[in-house]
């Protein structure tokens, strides 16, 4: 092999250089840490602040979606050696979270779909969720205040075990954190916030810089530079914005968003029943949907959407009055119980031979009564926001940073987990063929995969929200007919369940 050496002096020099590098880090598949090591050796040429480190990926935001990305990278053979920095000021990330079994359920919960459950199993985080409180549900009842219609979904309509699982966000977060800490993924957590981010355009026209210092790589557009509020700075080949609806990465990257506020607030809280609840309930009221989700034992979670004025009212009334209001809204409040006979039961669809779903004859049920309020009531404004771009050179947005949806079907965080899964798979494909992981042509594959799926789900949810925010006779009948169809027609029901489970992309065109 060393016949190369007498070939050309310059080649000899690079070869010798490469051997030095190989000896230093003989096994590391990714050379990023080579640069800091080499440059720190060069006396008199330290990096500014001398603290700057180089990473393959900097994940800004160590929330559920950001940590899911880290776990997913750690679980793939081609990405498990990537150097990852996680930037989040949440102090909980620095240590293990301890969740006591006897703690009352936190009102911040997520309804995760079967697709998300299998993603968690793939990345090895589900075992940690199972150690804590979580509630599977296999039935769901949706009805509206007009009393014209209701729909009951049963997991067995789609030949599934469960429709979903309700888990507290803190359980999801601590499970992902436990998993990422257990893996060999080279990672470092920066307990700070992102201050500034700079990425220069590609340039290769300037002189050859044999030192390959991080600053040189940065000026050639090969690295992004991040400066944190605590004065630390770091370089990364790829910056992932997983920093939520008010994403700083999105703002610094200059990505525009499209969206609107719903002028609706959601009140969330935890309640207790006399009996265990295994069904997810959702009733569409004139001001917005009210959802009652099982969260394990005799507890349920409430997500009640209403106008901001009503929400401040419902937040300040006494606990007893609030419970009365909830029980009223889930029973005879705002309108009668729906009866199957109003639109002429299932024979309306009898022309659909054999298409009647198994649960079509399930009767309308009244949800279990709320007997105790076990948490404070929290109110959040609702909005829809979608980033026009998810990626640009060395930047990718995932989760709420890319899209914030109406929480009405609990799909928000599931879309984020879908993003994390796809992005890590695209990065793995890129590494398989030797691509620079910050290259926009690679990142575009992630955008092309996720954007249509996310936009579709946002449109479906927004449509639902709009359809139920109007109280108008003919529309109510139409809505009732749609409900009836959804309740009685088996293939339709099956595809609604599959779509909501995160398994199908385009329910209408599939």
């Amino acid at each position: 092999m060393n016949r190369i050496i007498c070939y050309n002096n310059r080649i000899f020099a690079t070869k010798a250089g490469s051997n030095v590098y190989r000896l230093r880090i003989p096994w590391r598949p990714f050379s990023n840490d080579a640069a800091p090591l080499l440059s720190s050796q060069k006396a008199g040429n330290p990096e500014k602040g001398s603290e700057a480190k180089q990473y393959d990926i900097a994940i800004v935001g160590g929330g559920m979606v950001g940590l899911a990305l880290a776990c997913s990278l750690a679980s793939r053979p081609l990405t498990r050696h990537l150097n990852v920095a996680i930037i989040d000021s949440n102090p909980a990330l620095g240590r293990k979270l301890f969740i006591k079994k006897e703690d009352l359920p936190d009102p911040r919960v997520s309804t995760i779909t079967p697709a998300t459950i299998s993603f968690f199993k793939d990345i090895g985080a589900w075992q940690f969720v199972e150690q804590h409180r979580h509630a599977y549900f296999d039935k769901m009842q949706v009805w509206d205040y007009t009393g014209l219609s209701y729909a009951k979904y049963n997991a067995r309509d789609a030949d599934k075990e469960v429709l979903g699982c309700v888990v507290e966000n803190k359980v999801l977060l601590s499970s992902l954190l436990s998993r990422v800490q257990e893996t060999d993924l080279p990672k470092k957590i920066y307990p700070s916030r992102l201050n500034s981010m700079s990425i220069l355009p590609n340039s290769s026209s300037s002189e050859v810089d044999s030192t390959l210092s991080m600053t040189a790589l940065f000026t050639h557009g090969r690295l992004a530079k991040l400066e944190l509020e605590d004065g630390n700075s770091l370089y990364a080949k790829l910056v992932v914005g997983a920093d939520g609806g008010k994403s700083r990465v999105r703002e610094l990257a200059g990505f525009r968003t499209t969206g609107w506020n719903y002028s609706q607030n959601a009140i969330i809280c935890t309640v207790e029943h006399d009996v265990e609840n295994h069904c997810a309930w959702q009733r569409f009221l004139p001001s917005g949907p009210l959802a009652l989700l099982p969260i394990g034992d005799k507890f349920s979670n409430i997500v009640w959407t209403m106008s901001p004025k009503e929400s401040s009212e419902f937040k300040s009334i006494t606990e007893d009055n609030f419970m009365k209001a909830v029980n009223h809204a889930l029973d005879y409040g705002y309108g009668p119980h729906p009866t199957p006979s109003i639109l002429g039961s299932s024979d309306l669809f009898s022309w659909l031979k054999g298409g009647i779903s198994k649960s079509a004859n399930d009767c309308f049920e009244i949800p279990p009564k709320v007997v105790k309020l076990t948490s404070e009531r929290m109110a959040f404004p609702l909005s829809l926001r979608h980033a026009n771009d998810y990626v640009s050179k060395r930047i990718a947005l995932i989760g709420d940073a890319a899209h914030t949806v109406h929480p009405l079907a609990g799909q928000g965080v599931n879309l984020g987990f879908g993003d994390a899964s796809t992005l890590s798979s695209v990065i793995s494909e890129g590494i398989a063929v030797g691509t620079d992981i910050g290259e926009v042509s690679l990142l575009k594959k992630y955008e092309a995969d996720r954007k249509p799926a996310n936009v579709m789900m946002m449109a479906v949810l927004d449509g639902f929200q709009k359809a139920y925010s109007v109280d108008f006779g003919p529309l109510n009948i139409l809505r009732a007919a749609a409900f009836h169809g959804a309740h009685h027609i088996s293939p339709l029901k099956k595809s609604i369940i599959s779509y909501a489970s995160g398994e199908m992309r385009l329910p209408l065109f599939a």
Partner: protein
Amino acid sequence: MASSMFLAQRRWFRSLPRNLSNARFFSALPSQHPVSVSGPQNNVAPKSNKFEKASSAPSSLKEPELAKFSAIADSWWDSEGPFKPLHKMNPTRLAFLRSTLCRHFRKDPLSARPFEGLRFIDVGCGGGILSEPLARMGATVSGIDAIEKNIKIARLHANLDPTTSTIEYCCTTAEKLVEEQRKFDAVIALEVIEHVADAAEFCKSLSALTAHEGATVVSTINRSMRSYATAIVAAEYLLQWLPKGTHQWSSFLTPEELTMILKRAGVDVKEMAGFVYNPLTGRWSLSDDISVNFIAYGTKEK
């Protein structure tokens, strides 16, 4: 997962005996084929050509082809520039290389750097768009190109990343390296053979550079009606992906011809795959359709 993707691709590769059984290249060759295979008259012209130019190394390259590429060399790394089609096709070519060469060298396809310790040569490396990913996959890469400007650009670009700065770039020809008795574990010449004057001589050089039990990989464009329609009419005239005159249809080789001239050069073609472009997704993928772009992997016969 990426690994399963590569495993799944196996079924696309056309096994060669099946492919050869319906070939009719023996009859097609002597009359139509413009690139000399063994015909003595054809060999004269290019040879005299390259000896005339005293300064340049003996080469199977065509002078006008060199001028053509020299003119657009600056834009090698502009993924939206004249080399956009190559950039788009690159991941697909690399997927084929990764999967066949991992099998050939019995390397772990789940490793991020499976080619660690292997010497690869990228013949006709241009600006280095194939050499750099190969180096990231762990190979010790040499890139050669007959155009000095390409080598300069490749060198500058590779120096920007510690993983690719180890690539040895040199402005030379395959023939010259044969004279120097250089050997490589894998000799890779992608989208090059259609630009050389003497494909048979070129293949002999590739074979001579291949080490014992090494691999040779060649990709090019088929000389078919569809390739005329897509590679020339569509790519150069309608879509203007490539500068007009980039390719001369008559100098394309059919898969059968390529297989035969490689065989004569001592390389036994084991697998062949096609690249197909999906205009809806804008992506290339591997396929068993070798009617336009195709890639062949062979091993050196003992």
